[in-house]
């Protein structure tokens, strides 16, 4: 590893902050030749393939070379530093602030203007996640949101409804978790409610009225009383069920993506989960007895923490104009519709319903929602919950120390879950770590801007 570390140092930086690629003209009628290299994107299913085909056609004769698989950050940054950057990268939206602050990607201001990208059509939370220092650095796509998923037969047996487990009353939720729990002889057979910690702390905190990070992305708010209370409550749900260790052991032993999933085997009462899991359940266990709703605040309002992907142009990209065209075409309403049509056809062929796609493009979402086909109960309610959640999202703003910020709060939650610290103590420490990382990263960004 030391060797890898040392070798990484051999690719010296190219210096400078994030400045627009000077002298690049964007012309929506231009055609391109040569090869467009893309890192971090694979066409995968029909949603990716149909759009990628259209985007390639829009280049007018340029070949597209894909480096498939998740974006390898080290590989990407080394390539930028070595002056051999790809033309386009496909990244998680929460990585954009870090890339932008280090000058690894360029602002898309000229691209958006020159190619006529209509940014008003994007989900505003998604757009905020890719906007850094007042400039748009990436074009967003896809939205992941959480909804409440529950085993309706277990709910019925316990005399409960989905409203008892959707978060709208924390008192009811606590009671429901223990009612649904089955642990004969101390061995956990049915998890009553899985709060899905540590990953969903932002959701619990927001439901309790707190953001983990200030709107400008500069101030951590990890130890605010609302966050502490939210963590205490969500961890308390595990404690009431015998502790996180037991719940995690049961969760880890489940066949999450297969026919033997927790809902199919009636081993889980309810949990908040991302919407894509509805499709998994529909595919592998269409007969499962399920109930869906949005996840709700204690005031009863739907809420979801959104995340997704984005297209960004690296510094030093040889074909920024073509990259811009490709990203624009991938996220056009027409492209999404064409992809959705292909998905509808495939689902029809498989005898399954089309449950919609969340594109991070409001207009595309509207169009695609009209194409949704009924899967009957309970799947239709899942789709309805998904779209409702998509209308009530929040996200963390772009910041230059996203990974360290995320690690700080996740480590804090883990220390609480592992019984090493109390919530207040863990979040106080996380606050110090996160704020130090943010201060350092913002200061470096300010230095770059002034130099």
């Amino acid at each position, binding site marked *: *590893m*030391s*060797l890898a*570390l*040392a*070798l*990484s*140092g*051999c*690719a*010296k*930086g*190219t*210096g*400078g902050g994030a400045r627009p690629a000077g002298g690049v003209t964007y012309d929506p009628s231009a055609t391109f030749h040569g090869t467009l290299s893309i890192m971090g994107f694979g066409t995968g299913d029909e949603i990716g393939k149909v759009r990628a085909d259209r985007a390639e056609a829009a280049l007018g004769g340029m070949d597209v070379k894909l480096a498939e698989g998740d974006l390898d*950050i*080290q590989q990407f*940054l*080394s390539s*930028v*530093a070595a002056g051999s950057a790809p033309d386009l990268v496909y990244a998680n939206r929460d990585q954009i602030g*870090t890339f932008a602050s*280090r*000058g*690894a990607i360029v602002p898309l201001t000229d691209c958006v203007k020159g190619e006529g990208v209509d940014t008003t059509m994007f989900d505003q939370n998604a757009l905020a996640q890719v906007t850094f220092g007042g400039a748009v650095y990436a074009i967003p796509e896809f939205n992941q949101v959480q909804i409440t998923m529950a085993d309706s037969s277990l709910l019925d047996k316990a005399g409960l409804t989905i409203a008892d487990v959707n978060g709208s009353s924390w008192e009811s939720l606590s009671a429901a978790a223990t009612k649904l729990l089955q642990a004969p002889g101390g*061995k*956990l057979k049915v998890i009553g409610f899985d709060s899905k910690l*540590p*990953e969903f702390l932002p959701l619990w905190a927001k439901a309790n009225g707190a953001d983990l990070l200030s709107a400008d992305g500069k101030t951590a708010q990890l130890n605010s009383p609302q966050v502490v209370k939210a963590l205490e409550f969500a961890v308390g749900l595990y404690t009431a069920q015998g502790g*996180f*260790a*037991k719940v*995690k*052991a*049961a969760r*880890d*032993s489940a066949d999450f993506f297969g026919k033997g999933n927790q809902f199919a085997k009636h081993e889980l009462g309810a949990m908040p989960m991302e919407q894509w899991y509805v499709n998994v359940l529909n595919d592998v266990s269409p007969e499962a007895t399920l109930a869906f709703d949005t996840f709700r605040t204690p005031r009863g309002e739907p809420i979801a923490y959104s995340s997704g992907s984005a297209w960004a142009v690296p*510094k030093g990209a040889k074909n920024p104009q073509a990259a811009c065209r490709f990203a624009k075409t991938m996220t056009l309403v027409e492209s999404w519709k064409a992809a959705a049509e292909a998905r509808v056809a495939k689902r029809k062929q498989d005898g399954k319903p089309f449950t919609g796609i969340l594109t991070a493009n409001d207009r595309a979402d509207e169009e695609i929602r009209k194409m949704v086909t009924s899967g009957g109960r309970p799947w239709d309610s899942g789709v309805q919950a998904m779209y409702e959640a998509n209308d009530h999202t929040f996200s963390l703003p772009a910041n230059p120390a996203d*990974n*360290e910020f995320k*690690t700080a709060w*996740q*480590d804090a939650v*883990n*220390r609480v*879950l*592992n*019984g*090493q610290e109390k919530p207040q103590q863990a979040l106080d420490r996380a606050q110090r770590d996160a704020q130090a*990382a943010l201060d350092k990263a913002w200061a470096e960004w300010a230095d*770059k801007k002034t130099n």
Partner: protein
Amino acid sequence: MSLAREHANRLPRRRSTRWIETRAALLFISPWLIGLLVFTAWPIINSAYLSLTDYDVINDPSFVGFDNYVTLFEDPKVGLAIRNTFLFAVMSVPAHLVVSLALALLLNSAAKATGFFRTAFFLPKMTPPVAIGVLLVMLFNGQSGLVNGALGLVGIDGPAWTTDPGWVKPGLVLMSLWTVGASVIIILAALRGVPQELYDSALVDGAGWWRRTLRITVPMISPTLFFLFIVDTINALQSFTEAYTAFFGAGNTTYSNDAALFYAIYLFRQAFEFLHMGYASALAWLLFVIIMVITAVQILVTRRYVHYEGGQS
């Protein structure tokens, strides 16, 4: 006189032959030499320089003097990572040696099918470390894992190996025994080299198996045990993949456990997740110094217990 002249004439020729041979030798080992210089020596020197800089891969390194080293001594996670790593090494190295020796002794006394058993013991060593990390999570699952299942058969309620901070390291140590095969083979080779007449003499003197093992076998294979002691210690101090996979990697994208935060894992996270290459380089150099010191202490302390047939080298 003429002989002296002839000898004098031969000297330059001999020197020239030696030079030709040296050049040929250098030419033949040049691929390795170039590899050593480019892929080992230069990165080592460069990492020493990077440890004195603030470097994020993209932008030029900026010189910060010894700031990274100062930060390192103030960083509580460095202390935690060192503690975790030492504890793991203290538990895993003796466990490895004892288990390897026991298995090798068993194999050595097996009359039949030793080839089969040698292969069988070595095969787990071929398992990719990432797979071992995944296996750990499955085998040591507190609810449905085989380990707790086996403990349950004898009436023991097994611990939460993968979440309880007190049991995470013992779990990792037990799992690391999966790969003792290579050490077993090395010890077995050493056992085969112990002269039979020593055992025969001891038998005549009435020494039992235990006495023969302690008084003949262990001293005679002590250089091998010493070698494994040093190598296993270095490996334990650099332990990474299994713990990272089980507690920080793809299998646990958000869940992690401080008890498994080994030094190399912390170094990796600083370098490749947070892009603090300068700081990570300083961490790498500290690890290098720690390993050097520990190895030197091990050599000094254990030298007197190692028996070399040809005398102390």
